[in-house]
């Protein structure tokens, strides 16, 4: 779309009485290969090309979207047309923030992509004869966006992302269990040059085999140690969503009006950072065109900030934080997490377990969810062990952990020295988004564990 057309649309919005107007143009190409053990079940290519128009008047929002080429129809909804206006708004010169990549996805033969999946299957099944299946998904995406708004902002970006997700299936008698891995990346196909696929395949297989011998544990309230890595999803659910303007600006968060208060253990520092190079949850600019940044949300237990988009900022009287995101042009952007993690502390990983007479060690998780208004969250465990007399004894399964964010943040009594971030997806108000979640090993004094 020509710059003059963008300027025209934005001018029409302002002339119609709105005080902020935005155009989001998206052209996305996605490849998705699905391998079910030895069979390549699907190969999809998707080309999305669309436009989202957003108009704000104070804290009211009006959003229209449609496939590309429909801007005339969309403007009819506003009872206007694309005729050229006088005193047209002027956009700044285009700022292109795209990252250079070494291997463009379109230049890679589909066979090469498929080979990744076949390798995962072979390596996973070779781990143990009880492995009966290995389902894998390859995903790559090139999303070109143009974002322009009535402040004169005019940004172009291309986000290249790829991820490999594998789920192992193990069976012994009537018992069927699963394990999974899912490394992702911001960048091109070069991600796979150095990725240790064998280690990932074997990790998924190992997890399923461990769970075959896992037993059911009695539920109750007990100390819980959550291992480093994607276990950080605990904090994504427990407090991350409650710190998004989506909840805070409506008064639907337990953290409303609490900046500067001690809301967590002084051992905890929680950060959301969409600017980390190469991470699956990263992007150069957010979906309102603002450069992503490191946002410290909680520092040594003190609430320091929220994740804020333009509309949320208007409602809260605060500045945006580069946190506006949307799955595609059909969604209006709103505040969402990027890579959310707990910073490293000073405690020894092994000692956290040795100190406990009885408790639960969570090595891997599956997924979770939260009610931001009450802070009530739940967190489903993928791999866990009982802790008895300072030792890991037996694997246990079928467990969920629940609590409220406000309480759990204060229950942390040990934070390990080594943070790592895992990759996943988050479903919320503006669709499904790629995110990172991470932490060092962390111990909580008490959590409610559901078992049988």
């Amino acid at each position, binding site marked *: 779309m020509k710059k003059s057309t963008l300027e025209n649309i934005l001018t029409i919005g302002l002339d119609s009485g709105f005080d902020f107007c935005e155009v989001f143009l998206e052209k996305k190409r996605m490849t998705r290969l699905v391998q*079910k053990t030895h069979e*390549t*079940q*699907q*190969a*999809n*290519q*998707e*080309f*999305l*090309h*669309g436009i989202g128009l957003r108009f704000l008047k104070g*804290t009211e*929002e*009006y*959003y*229209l*979207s*449609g*496939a*590309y*080429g429909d801007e005339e*129809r969309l403007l009819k909804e506003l009872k206007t047309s694309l005729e050229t206006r006088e005193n047209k708004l002027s956009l700044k010169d285009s700022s292109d923030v795209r990252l250079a990549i070494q291997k463009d996805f*379109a230049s890679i*033969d*589909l066979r090469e992509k*498929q080979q990744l999946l076949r390798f995962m299957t072979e390596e996973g099944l070779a781990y143990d004869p009880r492995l009966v*299946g290995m*389902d894998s998904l390859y995903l790559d995406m090139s999303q070109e966006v143009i974002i322009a708004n009535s402040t004169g902002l005019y940004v172009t970006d291309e986000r290249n992302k790829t991820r490999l997700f594998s789920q192992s*299936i193990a*069976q012994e008698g009537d018992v*069927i*269990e*699963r394990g999974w891995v899912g490394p992702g990346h911001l960048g091109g196909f070069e991600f796979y040059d150095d990725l240790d696929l064998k280690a990932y395949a074997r990790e998924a297989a190992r997890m399923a085999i461990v769970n075959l011998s896992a037993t059911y544990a009695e*539920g*109750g*309230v007990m100390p819980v140690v959550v291992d480093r890595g994607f276990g950080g999803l605990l904090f994504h659910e427990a407090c991350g969503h409650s710190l998004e303007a989506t909840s805070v600006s*409506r008064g*639907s968060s337990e953290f409303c009006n609490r900046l500067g208060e001690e809301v967590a253990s002084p051992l905890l520092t929680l950060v959301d950072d969409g600017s980390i190079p190469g991470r699956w949850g990263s992007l150069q600019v957010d979906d309102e065109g603002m450069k992503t940044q490191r946002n410290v949300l909680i520092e040594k237990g003190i609430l320091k900030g929220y994740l804020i988009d333009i509309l949320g900022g208007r409602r809260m009287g605060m500045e945006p934080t580069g946190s506006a995101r949307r799955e595609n042009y*059909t969604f*209006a952007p709103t505040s969402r997490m990027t890579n959310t993690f707990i910073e490293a502390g000073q405690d020894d990983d092994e000692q956290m377990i040795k100190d406990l007479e009885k408790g639960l060690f969570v090595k891997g998780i599956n*997924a*979770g*969810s939260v*009610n931001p*208004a*009450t802070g009530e*969250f*739940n967190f*489903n465990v993928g791999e866990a062990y009982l802790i008895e007399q300072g030792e890991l004894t037996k694997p246990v*399964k*079928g*467990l*969920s952990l*629940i609590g409220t964010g406000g309480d759990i943040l204060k229950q942390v009594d040990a934070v390990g020295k080594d943070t790592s971030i895992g990759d996943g997806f988050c479903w919320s108000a503006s669709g499904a988004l790629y995110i990172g979640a991470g932490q060092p090993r962390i111990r909580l004094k008490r959590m*409610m*564990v*559901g*078992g*049988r």
Partner: protein
Amino acid sequence: MLKQTMTELTKVHTTELFEGIFDAKSYQETIKKLILTEDDEASYSVLIEGSDPPEEVIHDALEAQKLLKQKKKAWGPSFSKKEDEPELLKDENIVQKMESLAKELQKKYPSVTLKEFRHRSAKKGTILASGEDEVSQWSRQQEVSIVLDTREDDKVETLWKSFYIHDLSELESLLEESFEEVSNLLHGKSIHYGKTKVLLSSHAAGELLGSYASVFYSDVQRRKGSKFQDREGSVVSSSLITLTDRPHQGPFMRTVDDEWQETKDHVLIKEGVLQKSLTNLEDHGGGSGYRTNLSPSTEVKAVHLEMDPGKTPLEELQSDVIYITQWEGLFAGTNPASGDFSLQSKGFAFRDQKKIPLKGILVSGNFYDLLKDIEALSKERTLSSYGGVSLEIPALLIKELSVIGEEK
């Protein structure tokens, strides 16, 4: 050159009311998605939205055809069955109606606020076409979702509910029930009961069954995602249970599936005995093959699951039992392969003629065991939905589930 096409047309009006502060409308009209398949044997698809297929797409499709395992994709008998596109229900006054209903109910429940309200009217159509044959399917959906908030001192409770409705006149009773439910939960406690008798409300039973609907799908069974593989004719549940997929019913109704097979009622469990699984053509059956997001191959899916009701009024079942009305995080806390679930829940304890609100409890069990442990069914059923499947399930009395809470 491109023989098969499938087009999905969606027309959606959404009306939103946030906190009664402003009335905004979002509008998303006729997003056309076109799926193109190179020929009958290629399991490769290209999804185009908003533009013509570029040359490189055609090239990729040809390359993909060489790459992928060739498998015969039958497209079923060709017949034409075109239905008229339905009219959307009128929604001009729905915002005002909800506001006035909420104001009236606030007099009775002063601590409760209608925090958010969404109304979505959609007509969703799928057109399958091959050569000159064409089948079109339209369903009409009227969905209402609400967020209620209740506060007292520093206590907060929220309730999110979503309903498919036939008519706006149904709103009043649904809203009143929800106001009462959230009002009670404000004083909810987290109480530990251990293994105990549990009654799942019709809504909670529907959502739980919806999250395990895939255990009846042949493709999921083949991939070890269900324990019902090769169990046809076995007793898998209480003899009180008869469960049927009725694809001509509900908000997602279909008379033809995405493989051009006419859909029919399909009994899944009859008086406790497992019947034939739902299938698509790949699994030597058909009638339940649907595309997810226009993917190239179909997956098996139910449309509208109905469980035959019992004869006991719900009130009679609400005695000396933990009554679960709401689950949190169903997508995270259920495992269809093993059947295990562990879910944060809300509801009430009916004990010693008292009704004690419960929240912050964890209810755990195994779905396959639960089916066998059903002791009674209510005669009432409500419409619920989960994952694109609608359900009408009675309240279910379960012999024993684990209920974990803080207070012993």
